[in-house]
């Protein structure tokens, strides 16, 4: 009799990741810190520890000792479907990786599991399935004409055709949260820094596809990353600035991995760039922003790549701002809830996590909750509205810096 086929395969999982499944000591630290587990009413299926246990059981049933001796044991399809649902209810914030005593790189593990499940026909989750089509057709996930990325810039904004510095605006800032894109452009103009942009040649950085396990389909993410790299090179850029944490992380970590090559330019977040200028004394503040401000570290800028200090340095330098910290900051920060495709796939869960984060901010008695990522700003604003905390302003660090430099943003389209 022919042996039964294994119910799961190991597509998209690396050999080290399969080993990591055996390295979980089930200490439970990840469960204590997971924002989605918490926001979902402590649903055991969402606990990172539980996900590792279940996939390890899938592996052992398919390829363990018993499977080798007597053939693989069938895993009910509903178990795999339930697992898929749970693994997609994760913002890939990386808190579990930070506290993991075994140092399991859980973010990469969830993303690989998602890719595996997409390949198997289970994933992605809900509306995330539209990302590939939208990005393929529109080059952005917002169904916007790609020409609209920067053609709305007011006439005073000067963008060079070619320059050594390029501002990679990102889909969210250029198409949805335009105040940030305008603030960045005008701020660079005011500093006398010549910069260029990709405009309609800019393509989604791929973060949405990578985080939801769809990056490999038709090699879309790889092709787009390469096109972006080529277009950036063609603009003569040596330094690329990002005001979006998601694009920054994708460029810094995912593009070299997808293309298999080192980037031919330097990847810099705008807050790192501003911090350097502040330290050199090149920024002249014209206005005081008399507010108590707290700062939310975006996962993709903080925990994932370790940029914690620059946004704080910018806030501290702005006249009038009193920076107050929330309890959970920097590497222990609580996620805003938008990442990992959760905002699109499981909006209620995203809102629940955001509401908790807004409550963290309210506990500091801050007037304003700032961040350095338009996607965080969007979800934190939604969280603020959901709990009715109208008094709390939510704004990007770059917008605050621009305002303090006397830049008028009243004409920015929202």
């Amino acid at each position, binding site marked *: 009799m022919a042996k039964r086929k294994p119910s799961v395969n190991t597509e998209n999982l690396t050999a080290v990741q*399969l080993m990591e499944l055996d390295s979980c000591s089930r200490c439970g630290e990840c469960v204590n810190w997971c924002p989605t587990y918490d926001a979902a009413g402590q649903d055991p299926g969402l606990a990172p520890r539980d996900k590792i246990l279940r996939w390890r059981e899938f592996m052992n049933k398919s390829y363990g000792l018993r499977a080798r001796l007597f053939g693989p044991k069938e895993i009910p399809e509903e178990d795999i479907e339930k697992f898929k649902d749970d693994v997609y209810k994760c913002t890939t914030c990386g808190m579990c990786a930070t506290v993991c005593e*075994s140092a399991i790189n859980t973010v990469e593990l969830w993303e*690989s599991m998602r890719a595996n499940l997409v390949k198997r026909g289970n994933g992605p989750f809900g509306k995330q399935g539209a990302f590939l089509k939208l990005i393929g057709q529109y080059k952005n996930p917002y169904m916007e004409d790609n020409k609209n990325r920067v053609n709305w810039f007011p006439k005073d904004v000067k963008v060079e055709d070619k320059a050594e510095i390029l501002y990679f605006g990102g889909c969210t800032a250029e198409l949805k949260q335009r105040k940030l894109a305008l603030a960045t452009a005008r701020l660079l103009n005011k500093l006398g820094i010549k910069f260029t942009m990709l405009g309609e040649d800019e393509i989604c950085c791929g973060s949405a596809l990578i985080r939801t396990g769809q990056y490999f389909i038709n090699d879309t993410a790889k092709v787009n990353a390469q096109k972006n790299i080529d277009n950036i090179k063609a603009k003569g850029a040596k330094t690329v600035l990002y005001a979006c944490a998601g694009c920054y992380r994708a460029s810094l970590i995912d593009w070299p991995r997808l293309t298999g090559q080192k980037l031919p330019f330097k990847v810099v977040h705008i807050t790192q760039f501003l911090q350097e200028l502040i330290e050199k004394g090149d920024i002249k503040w014209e206005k005081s922003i008399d507010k108590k401000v707290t700062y939310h570290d975006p996962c993709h800028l903080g925990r*994932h790549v370790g940029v914690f200090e620059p946004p704080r340095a910018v806030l501290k330098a702005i006249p009038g701002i009193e920076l107050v910290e929330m309890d959970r900051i920097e590497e222990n920060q609580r996620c805003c809830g938008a990442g990992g495709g959760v905002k699109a796939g499981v909006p209620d869960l995203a809102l629940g996590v955001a509401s908790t984060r807004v409550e963290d901010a309210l506990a500091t008695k801050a007037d304003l909750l700032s961040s350095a990522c338009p996607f965080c700003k969007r979800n934190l604003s939604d969280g603020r509205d959901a709990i009715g905390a109208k008094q709390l302003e939510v704004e990007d660090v770059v917008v605050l810096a621009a305002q303090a430099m006397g830049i008028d943003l009243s004409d920015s389209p929202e």
Partner: protein
Amino acid sequence: MDYFAGVSDALRLTFVQVMIMASLSIGIFIIGMYINLKKWGMGSTGYGQQPSGSILAFPTMLAKQMSEHAHVHNQSVLETFVLDILFQRRILRRSPLRWFMHFTIFFGWMALFVLSLAMFAVEMVHLISERLGVHALPEFLYPEVFRELLAVPNDIFSYILLTGIIIAIYRRLFVAKVRESTIAYDSVLLIGLTVITITGFIADGIRTGRFWGFDMPVEWAPPMALFHVVISLLFCIAYIPFSKYIHMIAIPLALLANKGGE
């Protein structure tokens, strides 16, 4: 040659018995690790690449990750080995009590393992020298003398190990959150470790007539010693690849692969 010699001729444990058991345990361990390496090797040697299926896939990917630049905590192998693997600072950061529990178990277990290996080495030296007709060994290399030398350190590390085990049992039984999340996978590890440690104390207690012997007849020392040795070999060597004991191998590898973690 006798092992745990000097109790009675009838119940004396022979070196051959223990060597057979040890070889069997090591054999099972090797087969288990081969199966694990094959299982891990079902993964790829790079992100987004096709599954390898080669037994070399795991060491290849491990070497690749260890040589890559990490954006956070890009620390050296030495730092990872000393601070994260030996000192276990990631546990300390999260919970000093849990670190103390785990560190005493780890330290006690490793020290006893090393002392057992040293005892075994001395027995081997003695055996070989007897066969070769060499009688000029230093006095401490005689098994009876060396065993006495190890008596105090054995006691110290056994109590260190026992301290950790008691804390672990307490947590599993009386801390609600831990108790509720405990599954058989966790229990087997702790039960095995407890049985090994207690039988070790009892075997030694019967032989030496101390507290842990509970006034049991001295003739029971060899079978208890044999039981202790057999379950130690089975649990602490043979069972490693098939149970939570695998974490002793997998966690240091994960720490090395991820440069001590995020």
